[in-house]
């Protein structure tokens, strides 16, 4: 539709004056199409967050909630050593998991995009197959692999690489990192794949023409041009990982506990919603800040490659 057409329709709507005719304009049609997801987003996303933020300024008074404004919860959340340590560990785990995931997923995505040929679709399909099973099932299968009498230990013993089962595989931070990196692999792979698909192959030919070998082409062209995909993949993995509490609970043992476990405890057994809410809001703010820093760092790195 051209601009003149729109203008005519808008004036027509103004003359009729009613809401019914407003709905026939482009803007009205747009809002109409947008409204179901918008409503859904406000009710299910913004609403709960507002409830959490409100809770974080209140006090738990045995079974009831005292609605007077206080910063006591934040004081506790930010100064209590246990919460500080848990938050630091969660961030460490999340950053590490996202880096490991992206470093492992990038070559796979690169291979599918550059050498998948006409089988690209099938490759992507095959990659998603493990994710058809449930999240818990995938975590539990890592227990089977990493356990004392697990697949890995048995195999290593069978080949006489070790004589006794290695105990340090499961129930620690490493196990959490391995399990999470695997769980999120497909989520990292897709944005990486999309950004690799968008790289104009002629640019790589031009770089070759100007004397670059395959490695230099990758570092100078492919890597900087796929930086948006890398950042997206890192964020997609990192942000939810900070808040994961199932994985640490199942494979993390006592050393693998993360901040989300503490938040869950406050909302559950400890029944201190305001403190849980303050922890959640603090985590949200810190994760936001760390994400922002990571983006700036990566964009800075991109400027360095010339």
């Amino acid at each position, binding site marked *: 539709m051209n601009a003149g057409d729109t203008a005519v329709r808008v004036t027509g709507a103004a003359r009729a004056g009613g809401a019914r005719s407003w709905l026939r304009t482009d803007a009205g049609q747009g809002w109409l199409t947008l409204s179901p997801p918008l409503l859904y987003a406000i009710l299910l996303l913004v609403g709960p967050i507002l409830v959490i933020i409100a809770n974080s300024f209140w006090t738990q008074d045995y079974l009831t909630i005292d609605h007077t404004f206080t910063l006591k919860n934040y004081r506790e959340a930010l100064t209590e050593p246990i919460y500080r340590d848990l938050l630091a560990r969660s961030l460490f785990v999340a950053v590490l998991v996202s880096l490991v995931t992206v470093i492992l997923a990038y070559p796979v995505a690169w291979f599918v995009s550059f050498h998948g040929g006409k089988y690209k679709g099938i490759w992507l399909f095959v990659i998603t197959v493990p994710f058809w099973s449930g999240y818990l099932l995938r975590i539990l299968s890592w227990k089977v692999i990493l356990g004392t009498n697990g697949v890995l230990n048995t195999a290593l013993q069978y080949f006489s690489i070790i004589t006794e089962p290695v105990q340090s595989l499961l129930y620690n931070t490493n196990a959490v990192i391995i399990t999470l990196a695997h769980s999120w692999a497909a989520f990292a792979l897709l944005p990486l794949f999309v950004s690799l698909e968008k790289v*104009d192959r*002629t*640019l790589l*030919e*031009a*770089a*070759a*023409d*100007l*004397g*670059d*070998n395959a490695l*230099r082409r990758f570092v*100078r*062209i492919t890597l*900087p*041009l796929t930086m948006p995909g890398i950042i997206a993949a890192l964020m997609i993995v990192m942000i939810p990982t900070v808040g994961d509490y199932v994985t640490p609970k199942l494979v993390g043992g006592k050393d693998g506990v993360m901040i989300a476990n503490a938040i869950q405890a406050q909302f559950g057994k400890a029944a201190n919603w305001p403190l849980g809410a303050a922890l959640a809001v603090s985590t949200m703010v810190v994760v936001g800040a760390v994400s922002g820093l990571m983006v700036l760092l990566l964009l800075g790195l*991109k400027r360095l490659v*010339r």
Partner: protein
Amino acid sequence: MAGMIEIEGVEKHYGGFRALGPVGASIAEGEFFSLLGPSGCGKTTLLRLIGGFDEPTRGTIAIGGAPMAGRPANLRPTNMVFQSYAIFPHLNVTENVAYGLKRLRLGGEEERRRVDEALVQVELAGLGSRMGNQLSGGQRQRVALARALVMRPKVLLLDEPLSALDKKLREQMQVELRHLQRQIGITFVLVTHDQYEALGMSDRIAVMFGGRIAQIATPKEIYQNPASREVADFLGGMNFLTARDIAANGSGFSADLPGIGGISGRLPAGSDPAAAGAAPVIGIRPERLRIVWEGETADRIIEGTVADRHYFGEVTNLVVDIEGQDAAVSVVETNDFGADDIPVGSSIRLTCDPDAFVFMPG
């Protein structure tokens, strides 16, 4: 002395399909050489083989005396201006132009001097800090050119570099490219489907059809003495007439054309009129047919009727039916103001020089 580029028996197959060849050519140092042909004729394939982006299935390519087999693009003394220009979008103009120099480690001073020199050459001085994705089509083309020239290649390859520009800019760039090539004196190999581009810029042209080279010659030679009907048809307009009797005499021929009379002309090298059968085809360029106005006389008068007319500003193209010839001929008449407007349906008298004809083999 061997040429700068020696192409011998080169073929390129994709699966069972032979996209190119066998072709052979020798391109001299400092020559402006064009590969001209319709899309799908294999001209870009050949250019990519010279640049090292693909390897020939058969045959050899040598550049500057050195065989190029197994040498990828990054190790060849050639640089390419891509059809899409392939400007690096994450780098600015200076960084784009300096891209290939970085690896040579010339030092900041020398690198900057060469980049500036290249930017001046393509008239982009002062735009160095503009980002790759903020440039107009013409500017992108100039950056691509500077980026390749700054490497001081032995051979510059140009893959339809002007096809994305509008007509005015394209004509301006044709002149500039030709001027630049003369000035720096390196070998240019240009791929184009635009006959005027090839004719106006090249020292020599290779006309390609269906993966083969049909003719390699200077623009004038190709236009005046096309080696085949395909070549004649692709470059400019050509009227194809059927002759009755044709006889070769040395490098020329004489023939009798119904409705036109006895004519003579040159034979393309290697062609044999005797092999043309009962209906040999003779060609004449539209601009070599002239109108005989009322009151004028000419040695030869061809009587015809105007079937159609197309006005193009500087010229009018008349379609004329000639008695005895099946196909109408087209006549290009320069529009002198005042003497024009021959209505459709009126009779017309034409004339031509007796040697304006070429025999069309195949």
